[in-house]
């Protein structure tokens, strides 16, 4: 960037996340940016600023509950709402979901919301609607995690993929829980303030900047983690885990790109709902197909079949530590021998079996055993 030269940066993008409860904080932040010569142009995934002469501007950041979470352009009710605001000296700048940003054209413009209790109700309602999905999703996921991962601990601890996805989901869950708890605490305080006729606290820019960093860091960690996981997996020749990480990364890039694109195209509300929905279905089908193909291509090679005297042996792996002969079990007509090894950074489990039967499809006699190893005592205890 050359200041005063030919090359002046005209737009600035900032990755900024904010809740409806932080509308005053965002207002303060925008005013600070205007003093530095950046005027908000639009909100998509980023806050997009354009270069202006540094000046003092008065912003107002409002939550308009009738707007949908899927709105990228003003729908009729929102147009009417912005008309009212324009009449009162507030020029509409841009919107994102239920957030609407205005600039005062008149220094003495009446604030857009003059009723604290009503504003609180609007924001609470909007926050609740926005997090409705999380309220449903959270308990289901926790339950699912428990069933799938923790219950079958041996299987879980010997799979890098499972450990990694578990950590990922756990981090997301923790962030969501903190957000929801934070929101509930905010509601409680707001109610107290209303009772005492005090102004509600919609945070300030310092706290917003801190919270923004705190919100972005875990996702950066996850992203870096995913890349590292992919590299390590390929290095260890664990191709299915590596592919999983790569596909996840690809998906993230696609989701990111699509949300930027949708914001840019400013479709109608119904299209904004339809596109992600169709895309979601398409992606699920494609990933199911890829997964299926993966299983077919990389599933274990078909076991070799030997005929030795009267015994037909199906042998996936011939070398196993303990065999039927070692425990003096008579080998019948059919024999099935194999092993499967699972190894993660924490533990390794080797499962062997060597079984026999006199008739095909008959009850098999023989050995099944698992050798479980770990360098960590606490895992062995569990």
């Amino acid at each position, binding site marked *: 960037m050359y200041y005063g030269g030919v090359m002046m940066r005209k737009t600035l993008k900032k990755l900024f996340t904010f809740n409806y409860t932080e509308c005053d904080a965002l207002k303060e932040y925008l005013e600070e940016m205007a003093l530095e010569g950046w005027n908000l142009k639009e909100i998509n995934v980023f806050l997009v600023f354009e270069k202006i002469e540094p000046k003092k501007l008065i912003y107002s950041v409002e939550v308009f509950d009738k707007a949908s979470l899927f709105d990228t352009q003003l729908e009729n009710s929102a147009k*009417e*709402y912005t008309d009212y*605001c324009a*009449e009162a000296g507030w020029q509409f700048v841009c919107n994102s979901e239920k957030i609407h940003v205005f600039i005062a054209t008149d220094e003495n413009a*009446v604030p*857009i919301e*003059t*009723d604290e209790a*009503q504003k609180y109700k609007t924001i609470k309602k909007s926050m609740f609607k926005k997090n409705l999905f999380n309220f449903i999703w959270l308990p289901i996921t926790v339950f699912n995690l428990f069933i799938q991962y923790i219950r079958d601990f041996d299987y879980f601890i010997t799979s890098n993929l499972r450990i990694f996805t578990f950590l990922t989901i756990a981090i997301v869950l923790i962030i969501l829980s903190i957000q929801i708890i934070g929101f509930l605490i905010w509601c409680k305080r707001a109610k107290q303030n209303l009772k005492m006729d005090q102004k509600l606290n919609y945070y300030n820019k310092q706290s917003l900047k801190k919270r923004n960093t705190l919100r972005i860091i875990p996702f950066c960690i996850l992203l870096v983690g995913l890349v590292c996981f992919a590299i390590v997996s390929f290095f260890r020749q664990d191709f299915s885990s590596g592919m999983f990480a790569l596909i996840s990364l690809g998906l993230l890039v696609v989701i990111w790109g699509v949300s930027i694109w949708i914001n840019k195209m400013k479709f109608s509300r119904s299209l904004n709902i339809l596109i992600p929905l169709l895309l979601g279905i398409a992606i699920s089908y494609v990933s199911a197909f890829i997964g299926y193909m993966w299983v077919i291509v990389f599933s274990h090679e078909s076991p070799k079949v030997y005929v030795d005297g009267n015994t037909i042996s199906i042998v996936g792996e011939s070398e196993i530590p303990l065999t039927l002969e070692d425990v003096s079990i008579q080998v019948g007509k059919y024999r099935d021998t194999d092993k499967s090894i699972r190894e993660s950074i924490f533990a390794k489990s080797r499962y062997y079996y060597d079984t026999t039967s006199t008739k095909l499809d008959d009850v098999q006699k023989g050995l099944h055993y698992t050798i479980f190893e770990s360098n960590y005592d606490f895992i062995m205890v569990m």
Partner: protein
Amino acid sequence: MAREQFQTLSEPMYYILLSLVEECCGVDIMKRVAEISNKRITVGPGTLYTLLSKFQEAGIILEVAVIGRKRVYVISEYGKELLKDEFNRLKVMSDDGKCIMEGL
């Protein structure tokens, strides 16, 4: 339920209903409220918009015309009743205070 919610009107509600005794365009209500109250009461556009929706839902005001994006409202009979009740309540309050306050 509407009755309960609007049993006592808040100041902005009272003035908005006063200005809707005559037909008035939604966006012009802010000015009219300022006129009637000698600029003592100001209603923000967001607050006004929400209140108008609530009033309309409760049948307190009626939409009489739509000109472009502008909607014209007028108070309903039910609304007038509410407004009169509130007016009388305020009058009683004022009268009750009168004798005592004049002695001060």
